């Protein structure tokens, strides 16, 4: 049983997805059990990886590099933990939010798509085989298009369509890159490719593969200026879906980028032969500033949060672009912390949806008094987003700025804090309206009262984790440092 954990990680949710349709009446129970089981598996996996080192699992008993290998190290074990953890928190939440924002009937179809998306994300994270990665990526993408299109507004359909077109192009870029790599090295196993690449002399095929893979991953993780699909998708999707995708899908894409840049191509080729670091850093900084500035001027909370995601991804890519153990530590740490804060914030939006249909800032006037618990969660997660001490966000900023100093770039440190101040502005815009403005008579009719506990509890679990991991940082920091050292140390 224990030996087959890596396979179980993917298989549980994969089987549960069609099972949801078969057992219709109990679809929620099946989905919940599956995602909690997946969470348990990821905890066990992480525990084993930390205790024993890298786990290699040969799927179906076919030896790597010919067979498909599942390879779990501290980096992807951590990503698996994030993905399953967020899914386990969001799923209970959907039970109450689903009838509000999406569908009252045929919920089994939603849970099927949700579990498939989860399966895809887990597969991308766990697999050591490049083509397998593409297949899982498409599984997660296709189901996420479905989930997004379920949004309450008809614009959700066009948002999903646009994401489908862009996402497919990105995935095709990735598959082209993988194909070219296969042409150059004759292998699909990522470690094997890494081992064989030096022998190719890094010819033009490899460079082209590198370009296709990097750009494809950059679209998937919504790196500025390839982010245009994200604000629409996240703001029209149902809130629970936005929470799940914002906290996991882009994170997994960031993982893919890290995996290819550092493990497959290796630091020497990615950053020394090719000048990748400087453009990545520039784009990351642009994302931090442009997307934050755009977020300040949005009318809808969901769009603010969506643009904020683009900006926060900038922080992660900035850490990558420093090409150092401290930088990667900060990136991986922020991967985790941002999942917590953005997940909590989108769940808050879902709680608001319980009482009113509009997310326009003007319509939130006075909501702080109507829904005190909901908005308190928003404030906590918002403070974490800003990076106030005692929240998880502070720890991310701390390590990122420290990495900037270690990089010898004090001006980067200044830019990082300057962009945090933009965060203050857009978070506080919402807080002010919620607590200080009285509802105008013309605003959308809103029922009084707090969201039900079934929505509040998951929201507060994530908001509370923001505080918990702002105090007890041993787990995420330890893993992030371990993973970063492995990535940087693997290739001299």
């Amino acid at each position: 049983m224990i030996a087959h954990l890596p396979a179980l990680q993917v298989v549980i949710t994969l089987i549960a997805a069609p099972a949801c349709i078969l057992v219709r009446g109990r679809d929620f129970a099946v989905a919940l059990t599956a995602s909690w089981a997946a969470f348990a598996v990821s905890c066990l996996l992480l525990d084993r990886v930390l205790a024993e080192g890298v786990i290699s699992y040969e799927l179906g008993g076919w030896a790597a590099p010919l067979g498909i290998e599942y390879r779990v190290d501290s980096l992807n074990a951590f990503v698996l933990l994030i993905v399953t953890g967020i899914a386990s928190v969001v799923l209970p939440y959907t039970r109450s939010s689903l009838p509000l924002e999406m569908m009252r009937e045929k919920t089994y179809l939603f849970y099927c798509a949700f579990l498939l998306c989860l399966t895809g994300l887990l597969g991308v994270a766990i697999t050591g085989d490049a083509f397998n990665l593409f297949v899982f990526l498409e599984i997660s993408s296709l189901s996420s298009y479905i989930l997004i299109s379920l949004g309450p507004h008809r614009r959700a359909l066009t948002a999903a369509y646009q994401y489908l077109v862009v996402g497919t192009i990105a995935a095709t870029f990735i598959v082209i890159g993988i194909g070219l790599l296969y042409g150059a090295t004759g292998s699909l196993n990522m470690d094997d490719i890494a081992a064989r690449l030096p022998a190719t002399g890094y010819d033009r095929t490899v460079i082209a593969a590198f370009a296709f893979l990097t750009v494809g991953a950059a679209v998937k993780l919504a790196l500025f200026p390839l982010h245009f699909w994200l604000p629409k998708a996240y703001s029209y999707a149902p809130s629970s879906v936005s929470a799940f995708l914002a906290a996991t899908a882009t994170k997994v894409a960031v993982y893919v980028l890290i995996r290819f840049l550092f493990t497959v191509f290796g630091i020497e080729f990615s950053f020394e032969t090719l000048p990748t670091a400087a453009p990545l850093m520039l784009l990351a900084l642009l994302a931090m500033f442009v997307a934050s500035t755009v977020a300040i001027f949005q009318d809808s909370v969901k769009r603010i949060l969506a643009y904020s995601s683009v900006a926060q991804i900038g922080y992660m890519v900035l850490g990558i672009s420093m090409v150092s153990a401290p930088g990667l530590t900060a990136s991986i740490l922020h991967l985790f912390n941002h999942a917590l804060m953005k997940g909590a914030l989108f769940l808050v939006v879902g709680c608001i949806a319980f009482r009113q249909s509009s997310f326009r800032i003007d319509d939130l006037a006075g909501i702080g008094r109507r829904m005190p618990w909901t908005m308190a969660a928003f404030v906590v997660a918002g403070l974490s987003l800003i990076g106030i001490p005692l929240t998880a966000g502070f720890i991310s900023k701390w390590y990122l700025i420290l990495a900037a100093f270690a990089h010898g770039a004090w001006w980067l440190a200044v830019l990082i804090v300057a962009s945090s101040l933009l965060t203050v502005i857009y978070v506080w815009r919402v807080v002010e309206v919620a607590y200080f403005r009285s509802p105008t008579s013309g605003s959308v009719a809103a029922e009084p009262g707090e969201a039900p506990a079934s929505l509040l509890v998951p929201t507060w679990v994530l908001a509370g984790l923001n505080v918990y991991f702002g105090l007890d940082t041993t787990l995420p920091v330890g893993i992030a440092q371990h993973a970063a050292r492995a990535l940087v140390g693997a290739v001299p």
Partner: protein
Amino acid sequence: MSPEAAIAAALLAPLAGALAIGLLHRRPNLRETATIAAAAVTFLAAYRVFEAVEAGQRPELPLFDLVPGLALHFVVEPLGMLFALVASFLWIITSFYSIGYMRGHREDNQTRFYVCFAIAISAALGVAMAGNMLTLFIAYEVLTLSTYPLVTHHRSPESMRAGRTYLGILLATSIGLQLVAILWTWAAAGTLEFTPGGVLAGKVEGVQLAVLLFLYMYGIGKAALMPLHRWLPAAMVAPTPVSALLHAVAVVKAGVFTVLKVTVYIFGIDHLRETGASDWLMYAAGFTIVAASVVALTKDNLKARLAYSTVSQLAYVVLGAALATSWGVIGGAMHIAMHAFGKITLFFCAGAIMVASHKTEISDMVGLGRRMPLTFAAFAVGALSVTGLPPFGGAWSKWYLGLGAADAAEIAFIAVLMASSLLNVAYLLPVAARAFVPEDPVDDAPAARSVDARRPTVREAPMFCVVPLCLTALGCLLLFFAADDIAAFLAPIVER
């Protein structure tokens, strides 16, 4: 109780109080009892720590590692002890005063007020007793956030604007500059512990040191060094007890306390003086002292005038730090206590006047002194102490600061101190003096009389307001005689 446990008690008592206050929100009398009980326990705990510190101990309360290698912990030394004692003692008095003021003024949301107040006190004590810069920074940010609901207490558009300025400046400076400075220190020195003699000698030198000092000094927005002083006048929209305890004592003193702590224990005054990195700061502080006093002269609103006076007085402490001499630091530290008592008296009076007569503008207060003799007498005492005239406490701290300036051979700054005292006389004493003149100006006597006729019953504010302000005025007097003891208590921080 061991000193270590006393530290924990001093930090937790206000938080426990906040919880109790929140739970008792339907029963105002019990709620206020909880506030006062928490204040008393906090002060007693702080006093217990004081006994240990005075005996030469440095009690320490470790918590846990926030990030590997960097712990949250509390260590108490004389400088922080003085601040903690002042803040916790004045909290007791302010608690009584708040009861009189909040009820007399019929404020809404009193429970939230008391809860946030208690949290802010806990944060201020956290600043005072922090063992390293990270702990201090965290307490500093908690202090900012917990006072935000107090500043915006009235929820009016005006208070929202003020809240924006307040939070904007304090967060922007602390995250934008102070955090960078802290991380720079951590990257360069490998430690953030408060160490006698500083941690930067040999690590950061020359121009870099001056830049780092700049990041710290303007990063500590609570010290209200011009041009980052705007938040303090803005914060005056808060109820007066907040202005009195937080914006004359806890918050602003947390700022200048941090300035002293950073110069003494991170930079080290010897290192600063040898490199001359703090020279620019003397001029910045000197400018703030004079400029803020001049602005205060132009303000007719009493609280606004007091706020600018605070800005000016805070710069005294910064000047003491910038001089980087033993006397300067001791004078600055002593000024924290002296000014606290003087300024809280003035604010208590301003609040009492507002409660009793609903007057906020100085020009309207002519003749009020006859009706409210105790209040205005206390005001005069506070004004004299802030000005620095004997026999009140403020005289000594200015004396030590002057000694510090002489020690550093910066005679110009003795002149700045003198000029500022004159300005203090000019903007504070007339308030008290004019209140006692007969209230029948010749030119528009009928108008004045008719105003009088409509509201003939201006009397002293409620006892809960008047007694506290008399006590703090008395404190100003007593501190004059305690100066030697305070100086002796503070001496270890500059011993090498």
